[in-house]
């Protein structure tokens, strides 16, 4: 197929003239096949990777009726506040004054410690992204809930007290 009949040019040469050696014109196609399949593999992989994924988010209905409001045990609650510059502030229970600072890497340990020390039914994580937190921060924290298998969590806005406390802390720490 990849061969061609090569006519020996000027075949009528005298006896003393050397015949030029006929080379085969057959080309080894193996590397070309390799290349072809490599490209195919590459394209298949890159196309499937591009598909976007989605995470589910269910928000509760806003309610004013006191009997519909979820009650959270103080002993089982962990509040995570997301601030400026990828900083996380957290406190246990009900007292924002005991707020501590951490980051997105170390927060996993805090969540897990809390999870270990609390009965499953009592555990409740409250995520409060403040005005300076980014969308990525919020998604990261929701992701963290999935990673650590936290069944009960909620995302709400921080109270004015908490926000001012975060701002004070940020000012003191010089977070930009």
């Amino acid at each position, binding site marked *: *197929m*990849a061969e061609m009949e090569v006519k020996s040019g000027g075949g009528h040469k005298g006896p003393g003239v050397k015949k030029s050696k006929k080379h085969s014109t057959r080309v*080894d*196609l*193996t590397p*070309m*096949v390799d290349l*072809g*399949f490599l*490209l*195919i593999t590459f*394209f*298949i992989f890159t*196309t499937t*990777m*591009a*598909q*976007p*994924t*989605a*995470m*589910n*988010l*269910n*928000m*509760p*209905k*806003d309610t004013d009726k006191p009997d519909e409001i979820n009650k959270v045990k103080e002993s089982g609650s962990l509040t995570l506040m*997301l601030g400026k510059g990828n900083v996380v502030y957290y406190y246990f229970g009900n007292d924002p004054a005991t707020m501590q600072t951490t980051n997105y890497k170390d927060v*996993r340990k805090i969540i*897990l410690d809390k999870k270990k020390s609390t009965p499953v039914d009592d555990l409740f994580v409250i995520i409060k*992204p*403040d*005005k*300076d*937190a*980014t*969308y*990525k*921060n*919020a*998604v*990261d924290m*929701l*992701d963290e809930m*999935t*990673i*650590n*298998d936290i069944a009960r969590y909620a995302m709400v*806005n921080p109270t004015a007290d908490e926000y001012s406390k975060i701002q004070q802390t940020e000012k003191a720490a010089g977070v930009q």
Partner: protein
Amino acid sequence: MGRAKIKRGSTNVDMTAMCDVAFLLLTFFILATKFKPSEAVEIVPPGSVSNKHAPQKDAFTVSIDKTNRVFINMTDEIKGDVFDEMMSERHMQVTPEDRKYFLEAGFIGVPLSQLLQFIRVPTEQLKNTKFNGVPADSTNNELQAWIGAAVAAGQGKKLNFLIKGDDAAKYPAFSGVIEAFKKNDIYKYNLVTTVEDVPEGSELYKANLKAQQSETPPAK
């Protein structure tokens, strides 16, 4: 009595046919791939461990870019209905031509008052055009109206509501979008993300491992 001689065949296989097949496949895949249409607004979604694919059918997507502008995308199946619903709700007079332009437009990125001009801008020129996004604040919440129109137009269908935010978008913008959805009694959303690996040793990692093992029982 000589034994029949076994003819020695050459071990050289002709690769031409295989080469043909490989390149035929390659050509097919290249041509069949739908390229992502270049977007006038670039949005980089954050990563998450979720591996569920984003729904592509009957999708109503609200995007938030890094400067907190809000845009609306819809899939073609619902686009026309939503447009009709919105226009009749706002008592806007539109021509069939307007409707045609709307169906061709990639996304909604301006307040209603500028919409009819906006959809006439060709997609290539959108990059150089200034637009402020759909108003989603409390005074003039058109996002809420669009969502309402989509809900009304998509009755009997299961609409998928997607939120696609940029990494750098601020949380209040996201919160505002959620608020607009909530006002329309929609509480389930899909957040568009990119794939991220599950951290090794975490609870989810162990759970996934367990699920895998129970799916494929160990061979005896």
